[in-house]
């Protein structure tokens, strides 16, 4: 079994220091647009993000993304690469050209795959994986292969991290939980075989809590817990010792409308101390780690 690295002791700062740090942040410029582009040489690789982001069902236009890069506190955004359960399947903007343009604006990405869901998924309208462990593992590997291909077709030809979008399921159903564990294990194993990283999105108590002890745990987890606190630590059901070290993204608020730069988008809020593609950012938003 692969042991998850342990989290170093957490430093608590007095509130005034936190306020002072926030004050210093005001003086920091926005991260300049990265010199590298997605794809091409294959040298571009995932990196650590410690800033806020958002996820949206459908990729907004490049112009809207530019307005939000200029006028919002967000640095990372989602891309739903595909999968049989991708809800917004039209994705009229999502092309390799869009990826290149939006990345050159400064954005990094949470790459997501919305494939088969747990046999006991709360939303029973979803296409589901098998309850048979061997079949579930094969499906996990197959989904990983499809996601990898989809990422490459959009220009993510470097070393990526792709998160599996596993919606909330009944964690008291042992057969179902074991199928999910086998599936995620195979998902992660595929990406390790090709030298890349694998992540997984799930509810803190309705998903991620089941993935701590599988043979190949996700390299980074995207934990949904809508407590309206960006901090990646102190979440229910997922002890701080798990996915301790630059391995967490926290989805802290559900879908709502926000307007920045005069542009409205329907989004969920996220804060990262974890991996994004194609690379992270040089700035730190201490709201994500409360340190």
């Amino acid at each position, binding site marked *: 079994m692969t042991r998850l690295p342990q989290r170093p002791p957490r430093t608590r700062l007095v*509130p005034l220091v*936190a*306020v002072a740090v*926030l004050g210093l*942040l*005001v*003086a*920091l410029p926005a*991260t300049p647009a990265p010199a590298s582009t997605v794809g091409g040489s294959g040298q571009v690789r995932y990196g650590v993000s410690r800033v806020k982001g958002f*996820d*949206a*069902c459908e990729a*907004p*236009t490049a112009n809207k993304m530019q307005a939000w890069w*200029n*006028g*919002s*506190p967000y*640095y990372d955004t*989602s891309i739903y690469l595909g999968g049989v*359960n*991708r*809800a*917004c399947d*039209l994705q009229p903007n999502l092309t390799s050209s869009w990826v290149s343009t939006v990345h050159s604006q400064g954005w990094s990405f949470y790459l*997501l795959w*919305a494939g088969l869901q747990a046999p006991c998924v*709360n*939303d029973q309208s*979803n296409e589901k994986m098998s309850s048979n462990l061997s079949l579930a593992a094969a499906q996990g590997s197959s989904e990983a292969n499809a996601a990898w291909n989809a990422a490459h077709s959009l220009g993510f030809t470097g070393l990526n991290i792709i998160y599996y*979008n596993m*919606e*909330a399921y009944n964690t008291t159903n042992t057969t179902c939980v074991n199928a999910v564990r086998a599936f995620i294990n195979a998902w992660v194993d595929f990406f390790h075989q090709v030298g890349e990283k694998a992540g997984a999105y799930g*509810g*803190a*108590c*309705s998903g991620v809590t089941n993935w701590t002890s599988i043979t190949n745990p996700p390299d980074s987890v995207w934990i*949904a*817990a*809508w*407590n*309206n606190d960006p901090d990646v630590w102190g*979440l*229910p*059901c997922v002890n701080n010792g798990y996915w301790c070290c630059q391995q967490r993204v926290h*989805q802290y608020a*559900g*879908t*709502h*409308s926000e*307007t*920045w*730069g*005069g*542009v*409205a*988008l*329907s989004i*969920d809020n996220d804060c990262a101390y974890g991996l994004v593609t194609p690379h992270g950012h040089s*700035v730190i938003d201490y709201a994500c780690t409360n340190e």
Partner: protein
Amino acid sequence: MQAERIRLNRKSGAAKRYPRAATQLLLFVLSLIIGLSACGGGAAVDPANPQAGSAVRSMQLLTDSHGWALTDAGLRWTSDGGKNWGEIRPPGVAATAIRGAFFLNTDDGWVVVAENATESTDDLVLFRTSDGGESWALSPLGSRSADAGGAPAYIHFFDTQNGWIVLKQLSSSNASVGVLFRTTDSGETWQKLSIPIGEPVRFLTATEGWTAGGPAGDELYLTRDAGSSWERVQVDLPANFDLATPTYELPVFGKADELLLSVTFTGDSSGVSLFESTDRGRSWRLRRSLPYNLSLSTGSSIPADIVEGDFWVVLMPDGSGVFRGPSTVEALLQTSPNGLPAGVYDVDFATSQVGWALLRYGACPPGIKSGCTEIEALLQTTDGGQTWVPLIPAELLS
């Protein structure tokens, strides 16, 4: 289930405590926003107004003078058009624990509260009042996963007996999941049902109800058996919006017992249309459309409301215009509103003149992604949308 009765002194409300760090941060944010210019069209809310940094999460305007607003600090009630506000939160309930509220009229209301949080679950309880929040009765609703603790509860009552609650469940932006509960005894007992999406419901009779939304906002469902089963409904896209994605609102009754439905169309050709149905939602006919001069993203909506049978009010989300008038007239009255910035996402009119709107907009210093400020506010108009003023004084928000 035996209800427990609790009395509340509305005037005293509940004690409020704020950690020093939170207070410092609020002061810090307030100091930052002075000097920031508001974005978008229309006249801006004063960025130094004391609503910055606080959230008005939901609201309902019941009459031209009565309404409530759920904020980070409490469940506020006004009976004089926003001049004065009282606290009607059930005693002992933290404002942040309130997941949803609904009032059928100025007396009968319900509130869903999450309490007793543990590592993995919250207990959900329902408070109900029949005296406008003077006193509350309590009944349990069950438990749900703690990581869904921040998810909203959508409440709707058709009358004092028949009600429904949708408990939204945790999901990514790729999904919308909820569980439906139904009561026929004013909330004493509840039956658990399924619902295709985790979005608000509205019942126009004791058995006929609607829900709309979903990850892309393009799902509309009808039940004719009080929520036991749901069928998907679609409208034909108007010619101008045939490449657009619809975002559905919830239907209301029109003057002649017809159903009226506002639909936003997103994409390159964005706008809002009003549809009517004379067969209780089986088929829909376009009544009229309004184009929007900007393109909207999938899932976005143009806030609109229908009052007094067929009076349609539409607020363009960039604050550039308000359209209003009987939906059957050839030309709606168009105004360039004062005090309505970009970022309006919800509107509730009680009459053709008096309405509330919720807005949320943010701005960052030029070239800097730190030090951004977001303002959430409740606005009121008493002249049909021509002018808007912020409601709720600072001391009730902070």
